[in-house]
């Protein structure tokens, strides 16, 4: 019964999404107040019904209703409750429903929090969001229905992929999607501005907090995914340049460019058509990413082709949304000339370089991601353009990006005023060079040029970011939240660069085979295998090793219990690494195979400063939270309503 209720709720949500689009867009175009008045309730109603459908699917999972095909394929009666909920988004149909629900919730939030916007503008934004919702809901109902029944119902389900049975990964898709899908709001704001033919600084101020919030969710989601890959995949890597990861990283890069270009548009009215284009592309990349991943098109072209309706439908949707918006852009962008001037060393220039470099990075990754796909679609076989390509091409834009960031944070709007800052910058550079040399001597006793460059850029970025709020405090000047957020986020960028540089340059790892009682040495730590036993989990059995680690002086620093699990239903082996964490390093032990005669293969790793990488990413997100709650966004609406700022016609 629940499945049928969910199905009906989904159909009603589709009807409401269509009304949201029609009443919003037509009402605003004709200026019909009574039509516009319907838009907000339709949006909130749509959100309610999609959420209801989602809850019905959750309840089918919780009740182990294996007569629902999707539940039977992705769950099992032995599956712990938490993972039964996470299994909802464990495969295609449920993920699409989650996507639709998050879009509906974002739309609902816009409907409720947009009372201060001009009514026509708000209705156009909601109308555009309604078109996207309607397309996705139609896609779910016609090609990917999670509520289909199966007759006769199987006695038990096929279980959730064991890789996904992990708390970090259970949380990963909802957070990631909140980020991805949140860029739809910026997209809708851009479309509404183009329909009205009006894009000014107030527009940028409305758009910016929504974009920052979406961006910070995406940042957190990607971080969780990376952390999960590190401890769950068993080989200690934190980024694989896998197509699925790239699909989330490209919108992140474009979104990062967008929040910076929005700053220039908000403060100075500059780069309007560029900002618009970025808003369109950021969401387009999110759409492309979601569908490349969700359709399985990258992993296996044939899964995509096996359901031709699904593939063609996806392509049609993408084409409608993206080409529609870009055509509108082609018609309107010419009217958005901005006349403000600026000098070479001004903040405007730095933001421009930032945008150019971020977009270069995103394009290179897009190229590397699509290239194997294009070959595969041409039936030339599956190939990998792996980490060798991405690691190299990513460094090319990122090194100058950090270099510019160190100086650019201190630049002023409009005018070049680098000279008074020279002293501070020289101090930062000197301190960073000394710290970089000391750190590299501390970790390895030797220096390598690229590592030194990385360390220098990382430390200088952190110092530069710190110096801004501290300098204002010292001079007893007020520090606005926007500036604090900026400093915190850029400090995070530096921390991330520090962790990534040190962890990749100074890690060491060994694959060893040990019998109980034997030990091996990695980076001055002694790893001793002391015990092997079988343990039982709720839905798996595991072989568990005990490894005692002692340092050079013979002191025991940790006792780890890495596991090799076999999940009962799908019988796949899974590695559960044992990790000991301190501020300076991770010690990582993954259990391999039984090599016979009581000998086990183990992978031992020493990863210095690797935590700083994820911590840095979280600092970026934290900076986003601080900046998005700046007072000017909270009071902006009130000023607009009293007509204090008169919107200019572009």
């Amino acid at each position: 019964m629940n499945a049928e209720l969910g199905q009906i709720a989904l159909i009603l949500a589709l009807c409401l999404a269509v009304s949201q689009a029609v009443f919003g867009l037509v009402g605003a175009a004709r200026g019909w107040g009574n039509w516009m008045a319907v838009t907000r309730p339709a949006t909130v109603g749509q959100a309610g019904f999609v959420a209801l459908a989602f809850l019905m699917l959750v309840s089918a999972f919780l009740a182990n209703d294996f007569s629902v095909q999707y539940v039977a394929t992705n769950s099992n009666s032995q599956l712990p409750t938490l993972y039964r909920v996470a299994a909802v988004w464990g495969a295609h149909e449920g993920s699409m429903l989650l996507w639709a629900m998050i879009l509906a919730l974002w739309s609902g939030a816009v409907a409720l929090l947009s009372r201060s916007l001009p009514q026509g503008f708000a209705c156009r934004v909601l109308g555009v969001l309604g078109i996207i919702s309607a397309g996705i809901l139609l896609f779910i109902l016609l090609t990917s229905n999670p509520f289909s029944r199966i007759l006769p119902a199987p006695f038990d389900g096929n279980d959730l992929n064991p890789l996904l049975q992990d708390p970090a990964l259970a949380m990963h898709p909802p957070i990631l999607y909140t980020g991805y899908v949140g860029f739809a709001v910026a997209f809708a704001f851009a479309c509404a501005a183009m329909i009205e033919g009006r894009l000014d600084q107030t527009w940028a101020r409305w758009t910016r907090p929504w974009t920052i919030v979406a961006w910070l969710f995406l940042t957190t989601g990607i971080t969780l995914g990376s952390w999960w890959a590190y401890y769950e995949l068993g080989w200690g890597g934190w980024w694989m340049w896998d197509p699925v990861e790239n699909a989330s990283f490209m919108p992140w890069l474009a979104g990062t460019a967008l929040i910076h270009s929005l700053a220039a548009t908000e403060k100075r009215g500059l780069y309007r058509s560029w900002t618009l284009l970025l808003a369109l592309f950021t969401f387009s990349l999110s759409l492309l990413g979601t569908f490349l991943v969700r359709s399985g098109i990258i992993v296996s072209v044939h899964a995509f082709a096996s359901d031709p309706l699904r593939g063609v439908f996806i392509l049609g949707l993408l084409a409608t949304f993206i080409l529609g918006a870009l055509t509108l852009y082609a018609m309107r962008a010419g009217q958005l000339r901005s006349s403000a001037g600026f000098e070479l060393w001004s903040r405007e220039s730095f933001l421009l370089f930032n945008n150019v470099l971020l977009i270069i990075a995103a394009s290179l990754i897009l190229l590397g991601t699509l290239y194997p796909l294009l070959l595969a679609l041409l039936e030339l076989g599956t190939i990998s353009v792996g980490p060798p390509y991405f690691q190299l091409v990513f460094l090319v834009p990122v090194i100058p990006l950090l270099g510019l960031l160190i100086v650019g944070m201190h630049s002023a709007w409009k005018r070049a005023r680098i000279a008074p800052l020279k002293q501070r910058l020289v101090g930062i550079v000197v301190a960073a060079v000394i710290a970089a040399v000391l750190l590299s001597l501390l970790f390895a006793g030797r220096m390598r040029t690229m590592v030194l460059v990385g360390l220098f850029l990382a430390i200088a970025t952190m110092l530069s970011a710190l110096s801004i709020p501290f300098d204002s405090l010292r001079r007893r000047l007020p520090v606005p939240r926007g500036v604090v957020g900026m400093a915190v986020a850029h400090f995070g960028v530096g921390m991330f660069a520090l962790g990534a540089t040190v962890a990749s340059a100074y890690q060491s790892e060994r694959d060893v085979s040990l019998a109980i009682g034997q030990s091996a040495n990695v980076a001055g730590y002694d790893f001793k295998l002391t015990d092997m036993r079988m343990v039982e989990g709720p839905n798996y059995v595991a072989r568990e090793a005990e490894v005692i680690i002692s340092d050079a002086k013979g002191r025991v620093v940790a006792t780890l219990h890495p596991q090799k699990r076999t999940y009962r239903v799908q019988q796949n082996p899974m590695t559960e690494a044992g990790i000991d964490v301190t501020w300076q390093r991770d010690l990582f032990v993954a259990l391999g195979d039984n090599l016979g005669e009581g000998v086990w293969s183990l992978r031992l790793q020493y990863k210095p400063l690797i935590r700083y990488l994820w911590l840095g990413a979280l600092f970026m997100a934290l900076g986003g939270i601080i900046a998005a709650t700046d007072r000017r966004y909270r009071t902006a609406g009130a000023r607009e309503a009293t007509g204090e700022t008169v919107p200019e016609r572009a």
Partner: protein
Amino acid sequence: MKARFLIPAASVAVLFGFFWYALKGGNYDPQLIDSPLINRAAPGFSTVRLGDPNQPLGLQQYLGKPFVVNFWGTWCAGCRQEHPELLAIAHETRIPIIGIDWKDDHAAAANWLAELGNPFQAVGIDDDGKIAIDWGVYGAPETFLVDAQGRVIHKQVGPMTLDVWRKEFAARLPAGAVK
């Protein structure tokens, strides 16, 4: 409306047109991006064996009889996919398969071969990717067939299969050389 503002829409339209064409199964000719190396002398290389830096490995050692060169890496999903097929091919033929471990972690590569089995008569390392550049490799995996005269006579972009081996590789060699 200015023409330059149409550029984004036009480029995205081209990309989608391409997806559409591919989805609808256009009869594209894969020979179009075949290697310019075909029917030319195989590019020379000299490197060392995986796991044994004192053992040199070079093209010269294999000239005179047909052999196969396979570019792979542990970072490559397609390589894992083709690995069992390579083992089957190695089992079926006596033509040597030379693996080139492309820009890879040596320990991980040795582990991979120990775990999944070793179809290669020898594995050379290509840490800086120079061999792959000389051979014009698009991406991993990629497999070349060199005949007794030292000419590249065929290449496969993407995973090898036993079927491809029989129809595209073995068929190009004199029958006596294969088994």
